[in-house]
């Protein structure tokens, strides 16, 4: 009887899940009742809890909804009837009696203007008369807004508490600005790390092209076009991401130029799974690996060597490797370079490593297997699923020509 088997299995699963749920609930209950503590302790917990609940709405770009949520927690913290949070030139919200918001905005303005706490008594409100205490929020030496608390009778305690809350809000706003500037810094860092075309490469390529101009003008022309393709891709400004396919195309141009110099000494093998071609990767994250293999692996080796580029499908990831059978790297020196030591050779590897870590987290840095005389294998693993990151395509303007070249 398949149905009865299925039914028994389903009943088992449900019973198991219920049992686990009950145990978890009981445990939580036992832990909580043990740790409730004295009244004072509980008051402290509650205040801290309210503060941390409010904090997440105060950081970053504050919207009116954020201000309203923060105001709700702050009102509970102060025990005021109504609490308004007014940011100058930004959102304003009142929790409690929202009809008091215009009054609060006026009080906040006065408080912001004088940069001092401000108390006013016997204000008219829909529910009778009320007192109000306003305190300015001073963040980074500037007044950015005010906290206004309303209560039937404002005593010195509430005034002081309002001042303290305003200071605390100021600290959160400053932290939010710090977060924002940290994020901006990280972004700038990534941009700065974006690999640059090395001057050596330009110099070498132009020399190689020059050597063909008289002997083989057609080849020289092809090389110039490759050079144009390569520079257009590398100098493009739009977008920090690209696809494996586009990156491979740029590597192709790069290798054609290098081959003009190396001739048969540079051999290349390619193994690319078509599934990963549309994977989104950071802009110029494969080409520097190939350039590193050519410049530091094969250039110094007599008789040249072979570069093997693979891109494979590995579950939820795309795995990309660049291997050369060149002179290899001293592992200790490489570790120093990757750890941020004095930049010398292999700075391309370091840039790619830093950007991968920045974008995907530390577990996605480059993995390098190498030793002196044993060649080098560089591996990167990139998640295939990257919603929210679109690969910027080659500039739209050049789309008119087939493959983007200018027709003579």
């Amino acid at each position, binding site marked *: 009887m398949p149905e009865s088997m299925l039914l028994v299995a389903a009943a088992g699963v449900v019973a198991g899940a219920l049992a686990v749920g009950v145990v978890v609930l009981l445990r939580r209950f036992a832990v909580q009742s043990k740790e409730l503590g004295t009244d004072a302790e509980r008051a402290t917990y509650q205040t801290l809890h309210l503060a941390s609940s409010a904090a997440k709405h105060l950081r970053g770009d504050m919207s009116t909804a954020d201000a309203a949520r923060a105001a709700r927690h702050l009102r509970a913290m102060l025990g005021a009837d109504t609490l308004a949070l007014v940011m100058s030139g930004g959102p304003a919200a009142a929790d409690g009696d929202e009809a008091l918001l215009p009054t609060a905005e006026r009080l906040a303005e006065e408080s912001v203007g004088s940069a001092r706490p401000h108390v006013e008594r016997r204000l008219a409100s829909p529910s009778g008369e009320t007192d109000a205490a306003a305190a300015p929020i001073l963040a980074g030496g500037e007044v950015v807004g005010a906290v206004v608390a309303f209560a039937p009778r404002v005593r010195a305690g509430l005034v002081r508490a309002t001042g303290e809350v305003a200071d605390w809000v100021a600290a959160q706003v400053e932290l939010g600005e710090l977060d924002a500037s940290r994020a901006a810094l990280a972004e700038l860092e990534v941009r700065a790390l974006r690999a640059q075309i090395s001057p050596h490469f330009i110099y070498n390529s132009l020399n190689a092209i020059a050597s063909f101009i008289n002997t083989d003008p057609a080849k020289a022309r092809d090389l110039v076009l490759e050079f144009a393709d390569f520079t257009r891709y590398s100098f493009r400004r739009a977008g920090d991401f690209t696809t494996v*396919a586009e990156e491979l195309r740029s590597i192709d141009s790069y290798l054609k130029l290098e081959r003009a110099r190396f001739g048969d000494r540079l051999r290349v093998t390619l193994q690319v799974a078509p599934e990963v071609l549309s994977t989104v990767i950071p802009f110029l994250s494969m080409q520097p690996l190939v350039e590193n293999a050519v410049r530091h692996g094969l250039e110094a080796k007599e008789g040249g060597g072979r570069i093997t580029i693979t891109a494979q499908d590995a579950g939820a990831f795309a795995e990309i490797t660049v291997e050369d059978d060149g002179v290899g790297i001293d592992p200790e020196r490489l570790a120093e370079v990757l750890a941020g030591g004095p930049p010398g050779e292999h700075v391309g590897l370091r840039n790619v490593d830093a950007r991968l870590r920045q974008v995907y987290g530390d577990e996605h840095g480059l993995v390098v297997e190498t030793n002196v005389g044993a060649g080098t294998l560089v591996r990167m693993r990139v998640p295939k699923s990257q919603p929210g990151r679109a690969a910027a395509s080659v500039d739209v303007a050049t789309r008119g020509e087939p493959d983007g070249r200018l027709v003579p």
Partner: protein
Amino acid sequence: MNPAVGYAAIVAVAAVSVLIGVYGLRISRTTSDFYVASRTVRPWWNASAIGGEYLSAASFLGIAGLILLTGASALWFPIGYTAGYLMLLLFVAAPLRRSGAYTIPDFTEARLESSAVRRVTSVLVVVIGWLYIVPQLQGAALTVRITTGLPSWVGSVAVAVLVAVVVAAGGMRSITFVQAFQFWLKLAALAIPVVALLMVTGAIEPELAPSAAFPADAGPGSLEVYRTISLMVALLLGTLGLPHVLVRFYTNPDGPAARRTTLIVLVLLSAFYLFPTAFGLLGRTFAPDLATPGDADALVLVLPDRLVPGIAGELLTALVIGGAFAAFLSTSSGLVVSVAGVISQDLLGGSVRGFRIAAFASTAVPLAVALATEPAGLAGSVGLVFAFTASTLCPVLLLGIWWRGLTARGAIAGMATGAVLSAAAILGSTFVAAAAPGIRPLVEQPAAWTVPIAVLVTVLVSRADRRRVPRGVDAFLARLHLPEQGGA
């Protein structure tokens, strides 16, 4: 039937699949082929691969068996299996491709900005994957039992072990080409025998007169309206949420290519389903004695040997067995890759080792279920998986793509409602049918009421929760629906 033929065909297909998976198409290219290497998969290849992955035991064996058992009403299954791609084409393929999310959990997380939704979706994807692997393993058990005389469990265990080892070893790297190859193998493995049978049967007197095999009162005129509609809802909408099918669309370079691929898939599937249907019709007229619930699914395997005498019959049988194993292997490996991907990403931190462990876990569970339960008709059980998928993932996917008001809570509530209702209906169908025969169709084919309820719950909860509409919804939907920058 000669067991040697069975052994030879099974071993050959298994060996070829493993070899292609591990070594195959790792042709190294020299740099002159750079352009070829950096060209994406053509829609034709990709469509063949989707077909290869999609055509499972239910399509290869189940449809013919069901036609043998129930006659013309079983024809709705191939129609539904194929037409599901029309829904995919119309509503999902291109937007999902543009979203950049690689799996359904990734999509829901990105769309609703909530990790709770992600967890719920992940659980559902894993459960659906498991449920879908079970009929594949049962089909393997049936094939091995009929063709070699070995006990049933040998077939399930062999396919499960093979798939787990190959996937865990990372051997499915050139998977697009393996799957494309499997599609054409499956097509040939049914088309050639059908043509041969049609040529032979011209000279044989049918055991049942066609008018008795297909009585007019069992034809399209006497449709059970509710059952048919419910089945179509399940098959049309269930295709949208199948995890292993969606992943294939990311091999397309852009949205238009995804759409073109879907169109070709429709053509390929329509062509393919001619043949199992023909098998079923032939079986009903020439081998009516096979029409017992346990063995009907083996019709495709048995019929060539019966009708074609001598060595030709054995060769045709070998071909069909090979095709059947290709179906089990390709569908289950595609599913195991998807399920293991989700498990390793959400539970095991996405490491290579985690993926291997997950690959074994995601074959072990369905294997245990397949061994513990009796197969109850392949096409029918796959139909129920489709009903479950249609009631859980489909509303979230469709509303996520087309309705900006969807919220995380709405999505979770809808998925939970759909899962509970459809699972309860499927599991409880025997009891309910015995207790209240009147509502039997309602619980045996639940999709027609579970899907609307799930959609309704999703919409109502989202409406009540309007303040939590994700902030980035406009930007995200714009990305889903606007053509790619500079694209065709």
